[in-house]
């Protein structure tokens, strides 16, 4: 029992979008994640919180780190975890998403963790199957657990992210990480800045509750944290920037440029990272500033918290 959960049950059986969460939900997730982070650092990691439940990892897009993180989270909670690499099986044989979903649902898993290249696929699966669904990334739309783990990592340093100034720099147009982070940081009351060439910004992005910059040095002024994003070449048709070299000169993070920030600035990256394109290799490895590996560690803890809380909802609904 956490403080926030004392008089309030985590009400969600899905995590499809950060917009579904309110600040109390987020606080409950963070309190549980803090608990699991501590547990994960001990040699006795496995609990039985999800014992008896089956978690299905359904990845229609290739993924190593997110799938591994979810798999580890499920296993450490005592769930049965099954990985379906759908990219290489039934879809390739021409099966529709709807049929795949119904087939898998007939196997009676409890929670589906879904990644898909199309916006809305996890919501579609949730509706079609009635199963609990966690969105592990849908196209360029949302990646809610990534946003939760980013804010959680920052909260570990600052206590809370409200009132802090956070810059997201890089390929925002193709980034579901950016969209989820903008949503979550707005809920949590942070000041959000975006910096990218106009070709890598969504239209009307200035109406998303952010300040938009094209000049990195202006954007970095007095920032408390900076998140670099990779150019998502796999989602690009044609060139959005002239070269990686030019991108690095205009938008690459370096120690020198970070001098405009708060002296305790934290540097984040959701990975995979392209050193020398969006971030200087020395900065990525600087333990004083870079929290990139902490983000990965937080990822497992946050995903454990999400799966655990959804498992509780499933049990509650089943009358257990």
């Amino acid at each position, binding site marked *: 029992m956490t403080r926030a959960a004392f008089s309030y049950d985590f009400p969600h059986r899905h995590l499809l979008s950060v917009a579904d969460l309110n600040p109390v939900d987020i606080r409950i997730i963070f309190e549980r994640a803090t608990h699991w982070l501590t547990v994960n650092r001990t040699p006795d990691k496995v609990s039985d919180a999800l014992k008896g439940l089956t978690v299905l990892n359904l990845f229609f897009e290739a993924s190593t780190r997110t799938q591994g993180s979810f798999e580890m989270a499920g296993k450490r909670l005592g769930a049965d975890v099954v990985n379906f690499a759908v990219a290489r099986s039934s879809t390739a044989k021409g099966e529709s998403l709807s049929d795949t979903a119904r087939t898998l649902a007939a196997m009676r898993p409890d929670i589906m963790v879904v990644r898909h290249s199309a916006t809305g696929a996890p919501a579609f699966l949730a509706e079609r199957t009635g199963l609990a669904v966690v969105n592990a990334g849908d196209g360029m739309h949302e990646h809610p657990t990534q946003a939760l783990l980013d804010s959680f990592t920052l909260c570990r340093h600052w206590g809370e992210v409200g009132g802090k100034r956070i810059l997201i720099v890089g390929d925002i147009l193709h980034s579901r990480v950016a969209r989820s982070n903008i949503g979550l940081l707005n809920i949590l009351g942070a000041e959000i800045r975006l910096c990218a*060439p*106009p*070709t890598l910004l969504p239209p*009307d992005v*200035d109406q998303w509750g952010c300040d938009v910059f*094209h*000049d990195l040095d202006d954007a970095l002024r007095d920032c408390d944290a900076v998140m670099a994003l990779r150019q998502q070449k796999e989602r690009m*048709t*044609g*060139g*959005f*920037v*002239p*070269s990686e*070299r*030019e991108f690095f*000169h*205009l938008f690459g993070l370096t120690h020198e440029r970070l001098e405009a920030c708060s002296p305790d600035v934290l540097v984040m990256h959701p990975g995979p990272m392209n050193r020398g394109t969006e971030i200087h290799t020395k900065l990525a490895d600087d333990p004083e500033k870079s929290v990139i590996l902490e983000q990965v560690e937080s990822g497992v803890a946050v995903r454990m918290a999400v799966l655990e809380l959804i498992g509780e909802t499933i049990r509650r609904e089943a009358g257990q």
Partner: protein
Amino acid sequence: MSATSLAIINARLVDPASGQDGPGGVLIEDGVIVQAGPEIDTHAADAVIDAKGCILAPALIDLRCAKEPALTPDGETLDTLTAGAAAGGFGTIVLAPNARSPLDKADGFAGMNRGLARESVRVLSACGATRGLAGEQMAEIGLMVRGGAVYAGQGDRPIADTRTMRRLLAYTSQFDIWLSVRPADADLSEGTVALESDWSARMGLPAEPAISERIAIERDAALAELSGGKLMIDRLSTADGWPRCAMPGPATRRSRPPSPWPTSPSTRSMPAHWTAPSAWIRHCARKPTAGRSWRRSPTAISTPSSPTTAPPPSTTRASPSPLPLPAR
């Protein structure tokens, strides 16, 4: 050093910035204009020039120059180019990309500009917008802007791909520089040597229709509105394209239907897209023939006429001219 002063009087004084066009002169002290207008105090001047019958105006700017040793009889150098510019009343010239010199490499761009700074007239440079001016991959515009490029251009090569054009306008908008393109629908104009007309038909020439230009202007203007980029329409050559460019000023624009694109007051205001290109178009419109030869006759441009009364070209490009366009 003692102060030297020079008065120029009895000229036709033309100053587009203030709208001045009438008899007048200037008083210059130590290289700085201290008086300008119809009445000049000549008593204090060390020297007085009577400029009766001449025009006195701010030095002209040539936005598109090229050093073409192979195409000029005397083997042009930068020195002869700048000397020619100075003789024609040009105080600033811009070396612009073309097929022989695409200016699309960021390496050495800043160094080239430092070298240019030593010339007698101000020599600036523009950069190529796409690699090899092929209209496909963006050149390293950002690095070249840092190296001194004043705008990005495409020479006489149109940009066929609409998506590339959109991205170029968006990308250049972050540096607040102009994107200069030749208005031509690439497919309609490819391989043509004349403008489509009775004349081109009789001569059996592969010809481009005048609407090729109009289509490109309308496409590019719409993309400029969408992206907030600054569009410079270069090498306008048809009467058909003219009215689509010449809509400067808020008064004209108010009567137009509202833009379908959301534009907030904080985005670049629309007239900015038009003011300078229109000036530039007026500049181009008076060129005697299409293409490079315009650069060789600066007198045609320095002929005084108020920009607002400059007539649009009333004839199409090919009919009066015996010169077919160079094949692209």
